[in-house]
């Protein structure tokens, strides 16, 4: 496919790795921010191709993972109510709350539907005028234009049976929280390409300057990631700390203005709790007052929910690049994609789930070499 296959070329990847080896003289710790990048890195074994001194740590950029348990429980409480059609992106369906997941609600008491796009909710609302349609509006900046459009269209069309349960998160405040942590190990970032396609990267420039960290906005294909790593190491080795754009075929510094305009009309910045991390000031979106009628948290009165995460889970430290999945005694045993204990195992883009999916929980003795018939 055009613009995908070209950026998966093994020969060019090998050359990029050679170039990285030549440029790198000191050990460096680089965080890829986005869960999609984590998935691509683990799937393609990019971290194993890099020289020993280049360590990739995995960031907090999976919105499914960081949606707080309280919000998941709130979604479940609404989905269980009679007369509700609860709509969600597929990724959220098997995220366990304190009592089951959306799949189990779908197969028992609730009408839960997976949608491809938030706009599907409008069709469902029209076809079911006697039902309340609730959309679980999660995501980073990338998804905000789509979710904002649902609220905007619902208001324009005067749909009284559509509402959004909003749990939106923002990347720059999370990067700032990571850099402010006394335990921080991260020296540079691969910035989130699709987040920046929407909002641009001007917000990252003061972070790069203030913390003296290189940030290279990077795409998702293997060659994108390897080039991003090369650009970051080039900066680190020469003592620069700038924001650079590896993903120039998709985005410009200012991002997508029409999308930013609608986001600004529908959402406003608020404090948000991140699963495994805690509350980060100014790190999320909520609906503006003008859209309060479309806010599921107001439409459905759900009691305050107290939740408890398993004490053994270290996902908070993994999300901040302090630890890796193998540092957790529960990884791959007590905690696995069927029975996730915490944030980084609940979605395929979480670091623990990606490590598990590509066999990194297996011991050497479990591995069978092709052609080995013993």
């Amino acid at each position, binding site marked *: 496919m055009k613009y995908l296959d070209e950026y998966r070329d093994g020969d060019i990847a090998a050359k990029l790795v050679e*170039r990285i080896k030549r440029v790198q003289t000191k050990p460096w710790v680089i965080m890829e921010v986005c869960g999609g990048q984590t998935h691509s890195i683990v799937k393609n074994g990019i971290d194993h191709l890099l020289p020993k001194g280049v360590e990739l740590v995995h960031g907090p950029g999976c919105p499914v993972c960081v949606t707080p348990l309280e919000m998941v429980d709130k979604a479940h409480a609404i989905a269980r109510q009679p007369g509700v059609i609860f709509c969600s992106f597929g990724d959220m369906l098997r995220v366990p709350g304190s009592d089951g997941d959306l799949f189990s609600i779908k197969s028992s008491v609730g009408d839960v539907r997976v949608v491809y796009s938030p706009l599907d909710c409008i069709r469902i609302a029209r076809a079911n005028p006697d039902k309340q349609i609730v959309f679980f509006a999660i995501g980073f900046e990338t998804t905000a234009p789509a979710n904002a459009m649902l609220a905007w269209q619902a208001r324009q069309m005067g749909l009284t049976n559509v509402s959004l349960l909003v749990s939106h998160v923002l990347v720059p405040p999370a990067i700032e929280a990571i850099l402010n942590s006394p335990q921080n190990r991260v020296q540079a970032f691969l910035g989130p390409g699709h987040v920046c396609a*929407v909002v641009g990267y001007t917000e990252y420039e003061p972070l790069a300057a203030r913390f003296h960290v290189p940030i290279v906005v990077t795409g998702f294909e293997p060659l994108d990631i390897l080039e991003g790593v090369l650009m970051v190491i080039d900066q680190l080795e020469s003592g620069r700390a700038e924001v650079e754009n590896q993903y120039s075929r998709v985005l410009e510094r200012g991002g997508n203005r029409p999308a930013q305009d609608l986001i600004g009309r529908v959402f406003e910045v608020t404090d948000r709790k991140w699963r495994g991390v805690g509350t980060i000031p100014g790190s999320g979106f909520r609906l503006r007052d003008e859209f309060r009628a479309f806010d599921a948290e107001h439409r459905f009165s759900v009691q305050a929910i107290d939740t408890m995460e398993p004490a053994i889970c270290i996902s908070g430290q993994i999300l901040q690049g302090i630890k890796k999945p193998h540092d957790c005694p529960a990884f791959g045993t007590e905690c696995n994609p069927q029975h996730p204990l915490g944030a980084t195992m609940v979605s395929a883009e979480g670091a623990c789930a990606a490590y598990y999916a590509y066999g990194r929980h297996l011991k050497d003795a479990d591995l069978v070499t092709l052609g080995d018939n013993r």
Partner: protein
Amino acid sequence: MCLAIPGKVVETFTAEGMHMARVQFGGVTREACLDYVPETQVGEYVLVHVGFAISRVDEEEARRTYEALAELDQLGELDIPEVSDRSGGVS
């Protein structure tokens, strides 16, 4: 979750006051909202996330980036010490 896939716009139309398109991803064609990239023409590539085009893929820039990366090959060759009786080699 932030997955976005490049696809080719094969048809544009208006629905519910929104700019819409049929976008082809390999063998699959789906609808996408073009409101955020309204200037997009049929035949151009857009990056689609959850049914919304969030960016136009700059074909020229994509080609330039790819060629620059492919050229690493040749630049890599340049790092090999020159052998005096080697002639040509420019491709």
